């Protein structure tokens, strides 16, 4: 799914990364807790979060997450946007809640970057 399609499905605004609308993203991870993202999210996924502080961007950077979609129509601070620009991470903002955001993308064929934690842990152990 291209970033431009994600924008359309979520009626989202592109705050950072207008030049990256062709970026292809296949999987997503939804969470407000950054430790969960750090534990389970995979490189190349879309991070769907309601957390609007700069730690969300730095967390995405740590894991090579492709883009962030901030849900619940949160207002982003100048610092958030500045760090996202600096680290070149596209940022979308949607007014939908996380449930609606995840549901819409799932319906259009996006999958979780992990399905179940147990499976994830097994594959990591191998």
């Amino acid at each position, binding site marked *: 799914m291209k970033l431009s399609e994600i924008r359309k499905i979520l009626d989202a605004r592109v705050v950072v990364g207008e030049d990256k609308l062709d970026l292809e993203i296949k999987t997503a991870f939804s969470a*407000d*807790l*950054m*430790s*969960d993202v*750090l*534990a389970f999210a995979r*490189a190349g996924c879309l991070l769907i*979060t309601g*957390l609007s*502080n*700069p*730690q*969300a*961007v*730095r*967390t995405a*950077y*740590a*894991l*090579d997450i492709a883009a962030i979609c901030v849900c619940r129509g949160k207002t982003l601070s100048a*610092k958030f946007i500045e760090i996202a620009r600096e*680290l070149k991470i596209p940022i979308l903002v949607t007014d939908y809640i996380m449930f609606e955001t995840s549901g819409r993308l799932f319906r259009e064929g996006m999958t979780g970057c992990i399905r179940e934690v147990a499976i994830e842990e097994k594959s990591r152990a191998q």
Partner: protein
Amino acid sequence: MKKSPAPSEVYLEGVFQLRGRDFVDAGLVSSRIKNSLKNKGVPEDTIRKIAVIAFETEINIISYAKEGTISFYLLPDRVVIEAEDSGEGIENIEMALQEGFSTADDSIREMGFGAGMGLPNIRKFSDDFEIVSEPGRGTYLKSSVMLNGNYRAKDDQDDNA
């Protein structure tokens, strides 16, 4: 505090100072370490693990200590993160290593941390992990991620070119 010796200074790549409750730049150390390892040509998988470890370590110091330092080393076979802080320390390390155990307050939770995943995450991504703490004094943590023989320093490659 009894702890194993730090790696030789020869391999020291950077030292960062952190102050407690200074959340504004939380995550910055992780980003800097990541950039530095990228420039050295370290494999992406290893960098991601180290970035997670550095991030959680940073959040721990900012959340619970008065001040602390994070150092990182690039050895021929591993990357090492070493952190030392002066702060409240950890009463019961066994408990702190269990997923879900946390003494975080609401301000930390609203930041998206404090769900009791910090130390478990650090241990999970480490190939080698050591933690020593003295309640009321501070905590020392050392974490290593192995390079699995895939890595040859950029400098070496340049020499061979």
